[in-house]
């Protein structure tokens, strides 16, 4: 039954691409091959006083290179940002359910919405959707400084940008931009702040559409043992149940998630 493991990998590159946003490249064919869009890896820090893994979304998995783009948001990511090329770290194989692309086929339109540090997973998602033959429109929202835009355009996606500050692209947020441009698609996917995911779900519900959203919660083990990282969702009978974001998620349907009070 043993199928999952933690590997020691070497960091090939680790550089800032925006304020407090870093891009790390790791060479591991095993992990890169296993990674699907919407999944994450557990990154274990070298500092032994920091016990818990940092779950970081898969930005891109191509050939034998895994790319992670992460925000420096606390002590752990601050340490991660300081690791130089050549440093070895332990990371897990890709975990979580990932986005479900089973119903996406040739000629379908897909709209992917990324907000802030929710933008990185859109890269792997765009590539995967392209592979399924879909036409991809990416709507990205940033506070002020866009990043990963060129990489997303390189996948063939049509990219729209919104910034809170108005510094680039549309002055406003992702949902406003979607409404403004009247963007629509056969399939919707999103990753970003809860407030964005909730607003997007509400907007799309009015259009009788559903959206796959990537949820986030403070994790413990990051692989489904400790039951720390739960998210309230409705089950088939409409009862509220607590599902593990690391194992049952991080991707859920917007219609499943109990948005109120969370």
């Amino acid at each position, binding site marked *: 039954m043993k199928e999952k493991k933690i590997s020691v990998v070497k960091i090939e590159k680790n550089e800032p691409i925006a304020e407090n946003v870093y891009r790390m490249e790791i060479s591991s064919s095993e992990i890169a091959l296993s990674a699907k869009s919407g999944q994450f890896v557990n990154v274990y820090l070298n500092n032994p006083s920091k*016990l*818990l893994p940092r779950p970081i979304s898969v930005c891109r998995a191509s050939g034998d290179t895994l790319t992670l783009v992460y925000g420096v948001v606390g002590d752990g990511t601050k340490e991660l940002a300081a690791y130089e090329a050549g440093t070895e770290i332990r990371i897990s194989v890709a975990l979580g359910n990932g986005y479900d692309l089973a119903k996406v086929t040739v000629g379908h339109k897909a709209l992917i919405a990324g907000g802030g540090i929710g933008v990185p997973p859109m890269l792997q998602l765009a590539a995967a959707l392209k592979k399924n033959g879909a036409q991809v429109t990416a709507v990205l929202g940033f506070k002020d400084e866009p990043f990963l835009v060129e990489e997303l355009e390189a996948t063939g996606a049509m990219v729209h940008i919104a910034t809170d500050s108005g510094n680039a692209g549309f002055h406003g947020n992702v949902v406003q931009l979607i409404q403004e441009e009247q963007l629509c698609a056969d399939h919707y996917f999103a990753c970003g702040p809860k407030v964005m995911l909730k607003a997007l779900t509400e907007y799309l519900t009015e259009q009788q559409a559903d959206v796959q959203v990537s949820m986030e919660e403070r994790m*413990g083990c990051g*692989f*489904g*043992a*400790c*039951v720390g*990282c739960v998210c309230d969702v409705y089950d088939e009978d409409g009862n509220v149940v607590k599902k593990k974001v690391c*194992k049952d998620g991080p991707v859920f349907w917007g219609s499943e998630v109990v948005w109120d009070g969370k």
Partner: protein
Amino acid sequence: MENNLDLRVTIAGVEWKNPVTTASGTFNARESGSFYDFGKLGAVTTKGVSDVAWDGNPTPRIAETYGGMLNAVGLQNPGVDEYIREEIPFIRKYDTRLIANVAGHTVEEYCAVVERLNETDVDMMEINISCPNVKEGGIGFGTDPRMAGAVTRAVKAIAKKPVIIKLTPNVTDITEIARAVEAEGADAICLINTLLGMRIDVRKGRLILANKTGGFSGPAIKPVAVRMVYQVRRAVKLPIIGLGGIMTGEDAAEFFMAGADAVAVGTAALTNPTAPVDVLEGLKRYMQEMGFSTIQEIREAFTE
């Protein structure tokens, strides 16, 4: 037996092939089992099971500390029916002892679970009277020798499997609680559960855990756990399962020298999913280096 090591231990009449088990709450048979073969362990201890499904606490439930962590999971579990249906048969396929940890808000709830588990083939039951996250009863039982004794007496009156009582360290005198549960017939004692801690986010000016406080575990608590095992060993005659911050085989040896008969590995598995078997292998290496063949020899190598 390998390389003349005999790791077998007998806890309350149940023989384990080696003295390492998982700490309740840190092990999930399917998930942990996808990283390592838990059949290599002497026993596995499963997550606290209650008579009906418990939802647990609101999130955030997890916070990191220096060399440790806080958890306020609140014993979310699907209830004993699903445990019996799904977990027991899965684990029984492996050659390891199965210890079912039992949770409850009241003496009646503990007994209801024990009655259900009596009809199964779990090897032992571990009564969790010490979890600090449960608001009603949980903290009261473990911190009060009379209540700890009352739960033990009620459970022992009906249990058909050996009963381990898991103690909380959040007390003035752990030996008082240990003696109380021994007097009421406990077959073994397990300690320590988590300490009680808190974290504040100084950038947001808020508590990190939704529950405000959480159980503190990990390598930072080991000295408290070792001290308590040492004290309890000298207060009762019962077998002791020791836990609290074990990360390596040498940490396990420390607990044996303090007087434990078996050890459990918990938080280490969050940092390293294979920690329980790594501790077991580390223990074997330590024993070989020190020339010990049995766990008893580790204990006997300790002098006051």
